[in-house]
């Protein structure tokens, strides 16, 4: 049987969902039997080398680079999965959506207790290498079509594992309620 090709990325997330994914612990050995990773921080492959079956997206979109990577994933993955609250609805970073971006920047670089008085010229990050920050944080499904959503902050390891196995085997995603409730 050909292995399923999986790609993963972290956009405006914290890598917590990737960490939760790694929390499948020894099942990672079963995983290696089932899938082969393409572009992913797990194996440090930086560019797609082929079409993939499943793309796992962590994080929403807070800058133009996130949007570019997400569109690239949509173009290279047959099934795209939003993993975790940031990808599904912007998550915690979306708390800034109610605040003008200029206020957030000013607090981080001009007025915050660790920078106040140390930035007399009021320098903001302006290097052309840096991505352009978007006005708001956008969930992935507002940028591209997303096929599945795995909830949680982070989704527990078992949820990611069972969902991935179901997708690999072509089964319907019938996840038990205990896996997707958080209390």
């Amino acid at each position, binding site marked *: 049987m050909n292995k399923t090709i999986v790609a993963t990325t*972290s956009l*405006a*997330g*914290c*890598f*917590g*969902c*990737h*960490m*939760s994914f*790694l929390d499948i612990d020894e099942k*990672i050995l079963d995983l290696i039997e089932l899938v082969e*990773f393409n572009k992913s*921080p*797990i*194996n*440090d*492959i*930086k*560019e797609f*080398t082929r079409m993939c079956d499943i793309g796992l997206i962590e994080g929403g979109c*807070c*800058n133009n*680079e996130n949007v570019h990577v997400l569109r690239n994933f949509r173009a290279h993955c047959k099934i795209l999965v939003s993993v975790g609250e940031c990808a599904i609805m912007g*998550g*915690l*970073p979306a*708390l*800034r959506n*109610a*605040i003008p*971006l200029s*206020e*957030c*920047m*000013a*607090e*981080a670089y001009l007025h*915050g207790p660790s920078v106040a008085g140390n930035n007399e010229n009021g320098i903001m*990050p302006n*290097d052309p*290498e*840096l*991505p352009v*920050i978007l006005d708001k*944080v956008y969930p992935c499904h507002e940028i591209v079509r997303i096929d599945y959503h795995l909830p949680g*902050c*982070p989704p527990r390891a078992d949820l990611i594992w069972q969902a991935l196995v179901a997708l690999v085997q072509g089964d319907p995603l019938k996840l038990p309620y205990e896996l997707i409730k958080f209390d």
Partner: protein
Amino acid sequence: MGQKLTIEPITRVEGHGKVTIHLDDENNVVQSRLHIVEFRGFERFVQGRPYWEAPVLVQRLCGICPVSHHLAAAKAMDAIVGVEPEGLTPTGEKMRRLMHYGQIFQSHALHFFTWSVPICYLASMPVPNKGM
């Protein structure tokens, strides 16, 4: 101006970094730069929220070292409610230390077993030089 090499993304840190190496016409390195490409605005948006939320909110700064951020926020909240470091209960202090030692242990194991070893061991994987 000569060539520019880009390594993106850097995958062994949280925080979405990028490295650019600028070369002159003889291919000597003129400058190497680390770019931190992500801005999320935690400094501003945690303001005005209930103070007991802070330790849980800032855990989401980094999914690799959440405990460190949790404990830093816990210390800040101590200061806000007027608890001196020596005013912590012995149990509270021990629990924080235990959490922190656990984080260090987990972090080292994580780095070794899932970041460093696979790169060395799974040599059949494509060499990660595409971004360079």
